[in-house]
């Protein structure tokens, strides 16, 4: 026996030498899913720094502008990324945004509910929709692509039909007056760090309006939610048992089930996650605009998935990161706003979006091959 184990260990030390030669620090870094998106973000910033450095894009006001857009997309992209790591898609994100919007607006405006109650109602509906998506996928075994595509149409249709039925229109305005003194709405409608901007303004370090108040008044709520959700999602994925279950459920459903991971429960909770994130998105938008629109959120599901993919999520599940998706969202948000500061026609944004996605998918595919390469 001792002779046998000796021969094993001598062989393995030989193996180790081979490995040491093969893995360079660069390769270790390359194995991180968020690397592509991080590199992409840096490139995007360098590009606009050169092209649009003197246009006001990187003034406090300009930066908050593109950060706000990035953050809004990021909120749903992170939830979409977690679901993708868990091996499923949610195409109903965009429709859920519209649906959540009218779930807040109609009760608040037409039924006289207090705003906080409408917000709670919208989140309750989100949990229901997410649960329904999840249970359909888990129980029927159908691809989530189909189930949530159906939900995309159902929710958008419901949103339009209900709104028109109750209000006779497709828009519900008049929310802004309700925000003040509401015990819940401030969570989605308050600019923070105002004192910082006032102070910076008083030092004339940032742009001022003609009346002397700073042009950028504070950090928008979307950015705070975005940062908080990125940290929370990363903590879950990397540091909790549930995070490991998400990777396992997406990586190998059967294997995970065999070792006792409650795959069904994990997936259902992730579907609830995307619906709830859509509702956070909707709250911020509806309260910012002061109105709900039945077409809000159209195509957002695809942008969220694109950001997650650029962020390193594999379409087949089991791999990816929340930080990557956050950087994916920053890339898209920065480019979609930054393009206004350049001479380039904004029509080119979609071309860029598509090209970025293609590059990301090819890159991710290469990474996956590297990671799973058997020696």
């Amino acid at each position, binding site marked *: 026996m001792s002779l046998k184990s000796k021969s094993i260990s001598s062989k393995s030390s030989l193996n180790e030498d081979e490995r040491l030669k093969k893995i360079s620090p660069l390769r270790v870094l390359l194995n991180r899913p968020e690397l592509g998106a991080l590199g992409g973000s840096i490139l995007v910033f360098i590009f606009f720094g050169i092209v649009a450095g003197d246009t006001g894009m990187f003034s406090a006001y300009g930066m908050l502008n593109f950060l706000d857009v990035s953050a809004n997309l990021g909120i749903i992209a992170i939830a979409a990324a977690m679901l993708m790591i868990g091996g499923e898609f949610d195409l109903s994100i965009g429709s859920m945004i519209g649906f959540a919007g009218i779930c807040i607006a109609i009760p608040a405006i037409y039924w006289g509910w207090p705003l906080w109650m409408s917000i709670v109602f919208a989140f309750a509906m989100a949990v229901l929709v997410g649960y329904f998506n999840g249970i359909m996928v888990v129980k029927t075994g159908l691809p989530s692509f189909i189930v949530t595509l159906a939900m995309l149409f159902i929710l958008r249709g419901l949103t339009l039909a209900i709104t028109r039925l109750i209000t006779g229109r497709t828009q519900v305005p008049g929310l802004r007056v309700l925000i003040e003194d509401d015990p819940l709405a401030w969570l989605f409608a308050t600019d923070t760090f105002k004192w910082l901007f006032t102070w910076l303004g008083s030092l004339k370090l940032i742009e001022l309006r003609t009346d002397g108040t700073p042009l950028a008044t504070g950090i928008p709520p979307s950015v705070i939610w975005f940062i908080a959700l990125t940290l929370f999602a990363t903590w879950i994925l990397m*540091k*909790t048992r549930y995070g*490991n279950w998400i*990777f396992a459920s997406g990586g*190998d459903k059967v*294997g*995970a089930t*065999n070792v006792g991971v409650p795959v069904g429960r994990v997936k259902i909770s992730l579907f609830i996650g995307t619906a709830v994130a859509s509702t956070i998105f909707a709250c911020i938008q509806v309260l910012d605009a002061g109105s709900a629109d039945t077409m809000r959120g159209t195509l957002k599901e695809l942008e969220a998935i694109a950001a997650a993919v650029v962020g390193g999520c594999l379409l087949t599940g089991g791999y990816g990161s929340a930080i990557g998706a956050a950087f994916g969202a920053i890339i898209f948000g920065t480019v979609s706003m930054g393009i206004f500061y350049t001479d380039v026609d904004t029509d080119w944004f979609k071309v860029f979006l598509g090209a970025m996605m293609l590059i990301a998918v090819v890159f991710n595919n290469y990474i996956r091959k590297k*990671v799973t390469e*058997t020696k």
Partner: protein
Amino acid sequence: MSDYLVQFNNISKFFGKVIALKDVTMRLKKGEIMCLLGDNGAGKSTLIKTLAGVHKPDEGEIIFEDNKIVFDSPKDALDIGIGTVYQDLALVPLMSVTRNFFMGREPQKGIPFLKTFDVEKANKIAADRMGQIGIDVRDPSQAVGTMSGGERQCLAISRAIYFGAKVLVLDEPTSALGVHQASMVLKYIVKAASEGLAVILITHNVHHAYPVGNSFTVLNRGKSMGTFQKKDISREKLLSMMAGGEELDKLEVELQEMDRIHNKN
């Protein structure tokens, strides 16, 4: 107290009219490696699933440490110490060694509701365990996909042992492996048995089974053709007992016949 750690007595399993298993009996002592041999379709998979608690036997009894046991789910089998390593290994190639090792049973630390996955502890245990079987995991956060087939098999077995398996059920652990990798896995199986585990090794490869097995049960068309101690049976006899054996004999005769005719001309 009988000598046996686990006994599967007269197990039968029917699917509708199909008799998948009929009166299969296997008894194992601690430290024993029993090889379950059979050709494709002999009922090996059904038997494994019955041992693992996936199927309930329609007839017969399972006795573990002198207690009669009824499994309602795979979890029951795991809880009393029957660890099954399926052919697909239940490993996720994209996940790290540690994350795979503890998949579904992650050690936690911290206060309730804010419990975290104790990655440091898990890394240490995984590296230790792999080290014990001579696989030097340089970095336990490396993806399982970078490991060889043999190493993956050893990881899956090691995981089953760590989580309290007293009886290991291994489904074709060497079928997808080359000679070197297979011998690495077989060595580990022998080592595990020498530490007191009972091992049921399911295979259709007599050449892998014969060197490591203490006893051999041959399954043919859902029935056991008996259990034989190593001293009582030769490799060739075992081979011919499997359904393929007789056919190979026939084939050999036919080939000789062809050869004879060919030489005549």
